[in-house]
């Protein structure tokens, strides 16, 4: 009987090690195979159904969801800058203190006085501003 080398494992252990190594190789091969199949399948789906995306912004936009990121530019017409009312009212506000019953009449009288001082009506004190209905201020 040949003597067993001192650095050789017992036969049962060697068998076990061989089996474990084969299992490891098989597992690695399986992982690569699955990855390859997944990539192939994704490519097939993208080719069949273009435009479907897994990114949240695009998918939510496709469902009519409004996110205020890049999609903010596509806000509905209800609330575009124009429909927000971000433009001046017509007519613009005017001062109450210089307005008599008819501001345009006051302007015309001033013009006539400039052309013919002799015909100018005597200047009186400016009319006090009317009582306000409401105050706009901070709250």
């Amino acid at each position, binding site marked *: 009987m040949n003597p067993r080398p001192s650095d050789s494992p017992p036969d049962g252990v060697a068998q076990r090690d061989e089996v474990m190594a084969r299992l490891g190789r098989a597992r690695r091969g399986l992982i690569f195979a699955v990855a390859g199949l997944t990539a192939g399948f994704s490519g097939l789906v993208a080719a069949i159904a273009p435009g479907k995306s897994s990114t949240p912004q695009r998918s939510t936009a496709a*469902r009519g969801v409004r996110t205020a990121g890049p999609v903010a530019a596509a806000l509905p017409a209800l609330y575009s800058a124009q429909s927000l*009312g971000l433009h*001046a009212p*017509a007519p613009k506000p005017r001062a109450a203190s210089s307005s008599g019953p008819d501001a345009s009449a006051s302007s015309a009288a001033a013009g006539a006085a400039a052309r013919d001082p002799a015909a100018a009506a005597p200047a009186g004190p400016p009319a006090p501003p*009317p009582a306000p209905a409401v*105050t706009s*201020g901070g709250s």
Partner: protein
Amino acid sequence: MVATRSFPAFGGLAVLAVADGRALTAAEEAVRGVVEEFDRACSRFRCDSELMAVNHGAGVPVSVGPTLLDATEAALAAASATNGVVDPTVGGALLSLGYDRDFEDVKARRPERPLPPIHARAIPGYRSVVLDRAAATVRLPPGASLDLGATAKALAADRAATRAHALSGAGVLVSLSGDIATAGPAPERGWVVRVADDHRAGPDAPGQTILISDGALASSSTTTRRWMAPGAEAHHLIDPSCGEPADGPWRTVSVAAASCLAANVASTAMIVGGHDRLAWLRNLGLPARLVDHGGEALHLNGWPEAGDDLSPGSGEAPAAGTPEAA
């Protein structure tokens, strides 16, 4: 003959004016209905409000009604139009600064000892809000909180004026805590409006009396809603870039626009954005009156100068509640 009625609303004063006094009752019913609708939807403090549910959604979509959907969308549109200067996700910052209940209760609260400063939370930003109109839901990231103060009240004023005019047939002016909207034909010489730091100010407070015939008018001010926050005095107009009360050059800004929503968006943007926003405002062509902390008024885009107590050279007047007035 113009008739008016006033009642408490949104922590301030609501004023309704109608060009034909016979329409007052019908118009008032319409306005009160809109006020209740918006309070139920958009109040940050009512435990039964939809906004309260959204702010506690913790990242989950929350079902909401059409009023809050519209109000949220308007707030997001305002944020987009101002490049984030007017941002509804400042609710967390307000909570951190102690504005976590009705303002009268905030003012009445007296800390027993000085509290250490609290750094306002970072603002998540309006882009983090997910509004799904098809599903009628609003989703916020966990920990985020909406405050619709810069837009909801103004939107309510627009809706109230439109509804009051539709129901009554008369020309109406609706003011909700100083945010003013009109609908229908104005009186012959226009609606007479006083512009001041505080919408509750008496006729002797420094300001200006103007006439408006169409559109809307809104004012934002750092002088009215102030309280002792941990570490420093605070006001309610938050700068989203830092989560702190805005520290710009204007104490009060009043803007006229086609809608009250737009006017309030612009007035808030000017308080928060300061001089950097002047070109934006000039480009929009919105008439505006801007009062600096020294009490001097600047008039832009055709806002009338006559009769302004705070025009340069007319004598400075400090606002109530500011250190100069003490």
